[in-house]
């Protein structure tokens, strides 16, 4: 039998027996139980919780967790071609240095005086994104692109006082499902068809669906299927002609080379910050931004916090604070716009650092380099017998559909075999988009060197043999 010993917990200073005794005396209590006087005996849990034995020493704890983590196979150990909403890009060391600082990492919701730094870096994040997007208002981000897109639609509905939105069918089906539910019961989502050969929005279908009930038209660029929607101007014109708001979802890392959505008529733009300096983190790096023009009727519909710059009592000093705080649920509970709460501020700070490091030239070079690599990959894959890449005949950025209809194998079989070659193959689209047959969505970024892509091609050839 192991001997029992009393434990003083390093994270709990006043658990040291003498301190505890002194404090109990100070509050006139004989024991801790007295402090729980309001909790009825009928719901007091009197047993010991059935939990695993703890690893009390930091060393043992580390060994335990590292042991579990060692079972993971990472995108550094394997060559990864998965994207589909979470993308592997290079994370500059300075990004992790800043978001790892205790001053930011462990802070929360202080005021602009004790937490001036947080307000300034988040204001700067918004200001940097504003240039990337060419828009004047950017929010303190929400959870992810799903939430940003869903909220953008609710904003559009409130702005137009209409209850129907049209969404391009080429969207991530999980995102669509979330948006549908989020809009319920106030807003109905209808889907716009796409051209099966090139993935572009079917304009005639859009014209058929749009009406005086339409609050917004939502599409993405690049789309979930990687391609570039070339009819943005026409789509936004149709939306505007019908009194609807044009909402565009965008991958921000494409905006060094792609025209920002406002350039083709977007009124609200949303997307995910994860590509901008945040590790994939098994999907934990997502962060949803929303941007718009600086018009009161738009600004007043954001649920998020918006940090503004303002003078202080000292001439020449920058202060910060909440813009139009009364819109938020913090101020007026259910009377506010949706809700606001803890979301993803640290990733916004990180994205700000990333954009400050990259500068205009970095974003342009990066965008072009990604396109060169992805186009190279598609060309090489297309040369494999039975493989078609890109399957959809449109320009694309970093992702593209690869079709395997002319081969004997299913995507899941191919991907399973690719793991043995040290490769994570593209996302299986067969179930999500049956129209595309046996297709997978491949993602190529600046992390891929030529030999990585060449290895993919040789491996697929071997797998298909």
């Amino acid at each position, binding site marked *: 039998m192991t001997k029992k010993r009393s434990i003083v917990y390093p994270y709990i200073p006043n658990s040291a027996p003498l301190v505890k005794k002194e404090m109990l005396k100070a509050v006139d209590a004989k024991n801790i139980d007295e*402090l729980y006087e*309001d909790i009825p005996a009928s719901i007091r849990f009197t047993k010991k919780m059935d939990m695993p034995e703890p690893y009390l020493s930091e060393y043992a704890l580390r060994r335990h967790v590292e042991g579990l983590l060692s079972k993971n196979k990472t995108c550094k150990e394997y060559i990864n071609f998965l994207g589909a909403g979470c993308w592997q890009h290079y994370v500059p060391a300075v990004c992790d240095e800043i978001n790892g600082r205790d001053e930011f990492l462990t802070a929360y919701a202080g005021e602009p005086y004790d937490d001036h730094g947080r307000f300034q870096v988040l204001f700067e994040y918004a200001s940097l994104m504003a240039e990337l997007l060419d828009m004047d208002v950017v929010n303190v981000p929400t959870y992810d692109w799903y939430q940003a897109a869903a909220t953008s639609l609710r904003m559009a509905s409130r702005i137009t006082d209409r209850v129907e939105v049209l969404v391009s069918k080429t969207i991530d089906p999980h995102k669509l499902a979330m948006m549908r539910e989020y809009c319920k019961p106030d807003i109905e989502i209808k889907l716009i068809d796409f051209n099966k050969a090139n993935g572009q929005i079917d304009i005639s279908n859009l014209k058929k669906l749009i009406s005086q009930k339409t609050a917004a038209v939502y599409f993405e660029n690049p789309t979930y299927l990687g391609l570039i929607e070339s009819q943005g101007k026409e789509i936004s014109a149709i939306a505007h002609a019908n009194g609807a708001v044009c909402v565009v979802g965008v991958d921000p890392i494409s905006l060094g080379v792609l025209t920002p959505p406002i350039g083709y008529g977007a009124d609200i733009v949303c997307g995910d910050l994860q590509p901008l300096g945040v590790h994939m983190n098994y999907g934990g790096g997502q962060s949803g931004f929303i941007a718009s023009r600086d018009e009161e009727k738009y600004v007043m519909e954001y649920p998020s916090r918006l940090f503004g710059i303002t003078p202080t009592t000292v001439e020449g000093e920058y202060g910060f604070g909440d813009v139009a705080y009364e819109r938020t649920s913090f101020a007026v509970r259910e009377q506010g716009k949706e809700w606001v709460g803890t979301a993803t501020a640290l990733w916004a700070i990180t994205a700000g650092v990333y954009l400050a490091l990259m500068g205009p030239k970095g974003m342009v070079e990066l965008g072009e380099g990604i396109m060169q690599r992805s186009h190279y990959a598609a060309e090489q894959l297309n040369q494999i017998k039975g493989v078609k890449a890109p399957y959809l005949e449109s320009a694309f950025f970093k992702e593209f559909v690869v079709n395997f209809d002319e081969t004997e194998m299913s995507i899941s079989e191919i991907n399973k075999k690719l793991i043995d070659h040290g490769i994570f193959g593209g996302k299986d689209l067969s179930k999500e988009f049956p129209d595309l047959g046996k297709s997978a969505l491949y993602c190529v970024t600046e992390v891929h060197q030529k030999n990585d892509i060449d290895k993919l091609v040789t491996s697929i050839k071997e797998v298909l043999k």
Partner: protein
Amino acid sequence: MKNITAERFTNGEPNLRRFHQARWDEPIIYELSKEGQRGILVPEVEDSIQEQVGDVLSTLPEGLKRKKPPALPEISQPRVLRHYLRLSQENLGAGLNIDIGQGTCTMKYNPKINKELAGSSKITDLHPLQADETVQGMLEIIYRFEGMLKEISGMDKFTFQPGAGSQAIYNNARIIRAYHEDNGESAQRDEIITTIFSHPSNAACAKVAGYKVITLYPDEDGYPDLDALKEAVSERTAGLMITNPEDTGIFNPKIEEFVDIVHDAGGLCFYDQANANGILGITRARDAGFDLCHFNLHKTFAAPHGCGGPGGGVAGVTDKLAKYLPIPTVEFDGNEYYLDYDRPDSIGKVRSFLGVAPVILKAYTWVMNLGADGLKQVSAIAVLNNNYLLKKMQEIKGVSAPYAEGKRRIEQVRYSWEKLYEDTGVHSEYIGLRAADFGLHYWTSHHPFVVPEPNTLEPTESYTKAELDEYLAVLRQISHEAYTDPEKVQTAPHNSTVHQAKHEPLDDPKQWAITWRAYLKKVQDK
């Protein structure tokens, strides 16, 4: 030689800290731009690729190629780093200050070992769509953690998907909706009941899910009002969504009756456990009869708050509601861990992918360090610290602890500086500004201010008695100043990074500036 240690005390009491916040006067990042400078170089593309693909930008459709590069600043790497390091010094993380002034937020110690493990490439470099067989470690962590959360709450099944507390609350509102839809009662049951001392997101999330919200106010003693609940329930009741203990630190002693009344009316009961830090191993959601609950991993479970996320919200439900949880859930077949998407009754997704993995890992690691006894000790000390503060606070002039007089509180207290305001004209908000001069956070409360001139303190388990005494000494000093030199408090902060900001421009569409470019257009260029 002087006795330096002795000089830190006067009459046996520690002297106040001679704090001054960093004040770097750091420009806005755009002001640092110098044409041609670079912060980082991007990986070059191999020549052979370039030769093969040619001018890829020419493949872009007309009008889709960006004409001018984005007007981002051009700054060298050391200058970017210095900029952000300086701004970080102008921020008070919980790691640095006695962060008991942000009540309801549970600002506890965020262990460094957890951060280091979560920074491992074994988690940061995982893609969420990798095959299950390649993420066995991560799935096992979630699965094991779910088992522990089940024990802590008494619930039967959990989701880890929500990105933070409010999203977990929303998740639960959706489950309530799905349940009534299945019973064909969703049209009839269109009301959610909450209390004013529950987090505002209970009301706001219920509204987004389509509900009319009924908010109960407390009885005279500050307890949730049973009679008010009885009046509010009806055949329209979809559910009850409440915090307990409430943001006043008062535990609802009639919680079982609350649950029974709502159940009898056909509604479901959701337990917002944002305030769970004082009751781990003491009382459980399930044992009080609740159908759903949630925890904030970034509060109770010691994951850092990240300036406002990413956090983690885990939501638990009883067996009868388990089928509604979002897809996918993490399951174990005795051999392998796997993601189960085959859940036809699921509410689908509330967030992309599986949740915030690094936050989940930090929380798991924290629990594995403490175990059942350690968790109970967390709560014991959090409650002891709170009642110690409660006792000492009442000795300070101008402040009181409204409601439940003479009773103990759980993990926090919402105090009132009403007397101080009446006596001196100094609002609670200004006490907060002055607290910044001593390197401390101070928060009032959510709105509306039901407690007049509110101040919510939550000491958690993470601070030493001496630190609690220091916080108290600062409040005592500010109270003294309010009575003797109110202007000093009303013009604070004096030792912080900046001085009082002007609020009017922030509410004026003609003046507000949410980005630097808006500021240049609206303000500076004029």
